C-alpha cells in the first residue's frame, strides 16, 4: 500500500519537475528525477547505487547469494579455494564473550574513495559516475596492487585460462576482477543476481537501490534504522551497508 502511494507521488513529482523545466528552457533541468536509463544514455552521478544487508535475516550456512553470483558470472572453481575467483563470500563473526554469531555476505563495498582506484597504475580500477567500483579489464595489467589495497579482500585474480564465459560477464586470465554489482543488469534496469536470489528465496536480507534518491526503499530504510559500514574508521564511505552488527 505504501509503495503505491510512493509510486503515484513520484510520478506526480517527476511530471511536475519535467513540466517546470520545460517552461524555463528546453534541455535545462532544475530537478533531476530518478528515472530508468535508456541504453544510449550515459550514467550520471545523480545516482549512487548501494546495498543494505540485514544480518539478522542472513542465516548461517545459506549460500543462495553466492550461488546466484557464481552462476551469473560463470565463476568456475579449479578446486583451489584460496585462489579461485570469488565476487561474494559468506563470513561468520562470533563475539567471544557472548558466543553470539553473525553471518553476512562480504563483497566489494563500492567505496566512494576507493583504495583500489588510488593505487591502480593504469587507470583500470575506476569509479563509475554512479558509484560502482569497476575494473576495466582491457587496460588491467594484472599487477594486483588493488588486491593488496582493498581492506575487504574483495578482489580476485584470474590465474587460469577461461573458456565458455557468459555473454554478460567477460572474464580472462591475467586480470583482476570483483563484484560489479551486476552492472550489466543495472544498466538494463535490473537488480543484482545476489539480491534477486535472496528475495526470491524469501530471505529478504538484501536491499538494492539508489542512495541518492531519498524516496528509494534503501534510503528510507537507512533513514529509519541506519546501517553500519564495515571498517568505518577508514572513512571510505562504502556503498554497501550492514544492519545488526
Amino acid at each position, binding site marked *: 500500500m505504501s509503495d503505491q502511494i510512493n509510486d503515484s507521488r513520484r510520478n506526480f513529482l517527476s511530471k511536475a519537475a519535467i513540466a517546470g523545466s520545460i517552461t524555463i528552457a528546453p534541455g535545462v533541468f532544475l530537478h533531476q528525477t530518478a528515472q530508468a536509463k535508456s541504453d544510449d544514455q550515459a550514467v550520471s552521478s545523480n545516482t549512487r547505487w548501494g546495498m543494505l544487508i540485514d544480518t539478522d535475516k542472513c542465516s548461517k550456512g545459506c549460500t543462495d547469494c553466492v550461488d546466484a553470483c557464481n552462476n551469473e558470472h*560463470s565463476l568456475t572453481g579449479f578446486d583451489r579455494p584460496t585462489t579461485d575467483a570469488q565476487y561474494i563470500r559468506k563470513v561468520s563473526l562470533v563475539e567471544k564473550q557472548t558466543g553470539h554469531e553473525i553471518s553476512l555476505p562480504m563483497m566489494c563495498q563500492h567505496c566512494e574513495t576507493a583504495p583500489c582506484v588510488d593505487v591502480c597504475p593504469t587507470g583500470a580500477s575506476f569509479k563509475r559516475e554512479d558509484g560502482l567500483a569497476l575494473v576495466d579489464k582491457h587496460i588491467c595489467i594484472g599487477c594486483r596492487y588493488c588486491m593488496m589495497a582493498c581492506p575487504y579482500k574483495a578482489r580476485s585474480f584470474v590465474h587460469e585460462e577461461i573458456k565458455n564465459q557468459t555473454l554478460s560477464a*567477460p572474464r580472462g586470465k591475467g586480470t583482476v576482477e570483483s563484484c560489479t554489482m551486476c552492472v550489466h543488469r543495472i544498466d538494463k534496469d535490473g537488480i543484482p543476481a545476489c539480491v534477486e536470489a535472496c528475495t526470491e528465496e524469501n530471505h529478504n536480507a538484501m536491499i538494492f537501490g539508489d542512495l541518492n534518491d531519498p524516496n528509494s526503499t534503501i534510503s528510507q530504510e537507512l533513514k529509519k534504522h541506519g546501517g553500519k559500514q564495515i571498517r568505518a574508521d577508514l572513512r571510505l564511505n562504502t556503498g554497501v551497508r550492514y544492519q545488526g552488527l
Partner: protein
Amino acid sequence: MTKCFLRISLILTGLIMLFPTQGIAETPFPTIHEPEGHGVECVEDEDEMRRNHMNYILHQRDKTMHEGIRTETYSLSRCIDCHVQPNDKGEVVGHDDKEHFCNACHQYAAVQIDCFQCHADRPQKYIKRASKPQALKEQLQEVLAAKDMGDAQ
C-alpha cells in the same frame, strides 16, 4: 657476350617476378560463412566494416565500460550473434578454429585478436555453461564448514 649477359639477366628478372605471384596464388583466401537466418544487412557497408570494424568495436567498448552505454548496434555481441553460426556439420566452432568468422580473416592477415580471451566467442545459446552450481555449492559448503572455526574471533 653482352647479349648473353642480357639474356641471363632477363630470365633472372622473370623468375624473380614469377615467384611472389605464385606464392599469393597458393595462399587460400578465407571463406566466411554468410550470416544465416537473420536476413539483414550489416550495421555498415561491407567495405567499411572490413576496413574499420575494429574502430567501431573499440569506441563502443569504452562507452560501455565507462559510461554504461549499452546500445547494440556496434557491440561485439551483435557481431557474434549474426556472424557466428553453425557450419555445414551443425557445429559452432570456437575462436581458435580457422572456420570461426573472426579467425578466418585474422589468421590469413596474421593479426592476433585478444577479444576472446575474455569475451564470449559464440552466441549465448551455443555456449555450454561450464559452471556447475551444485558442485560449486557443495565445495562452498565444505569451505564454509572448514572456515567457521578460523573466522571465529
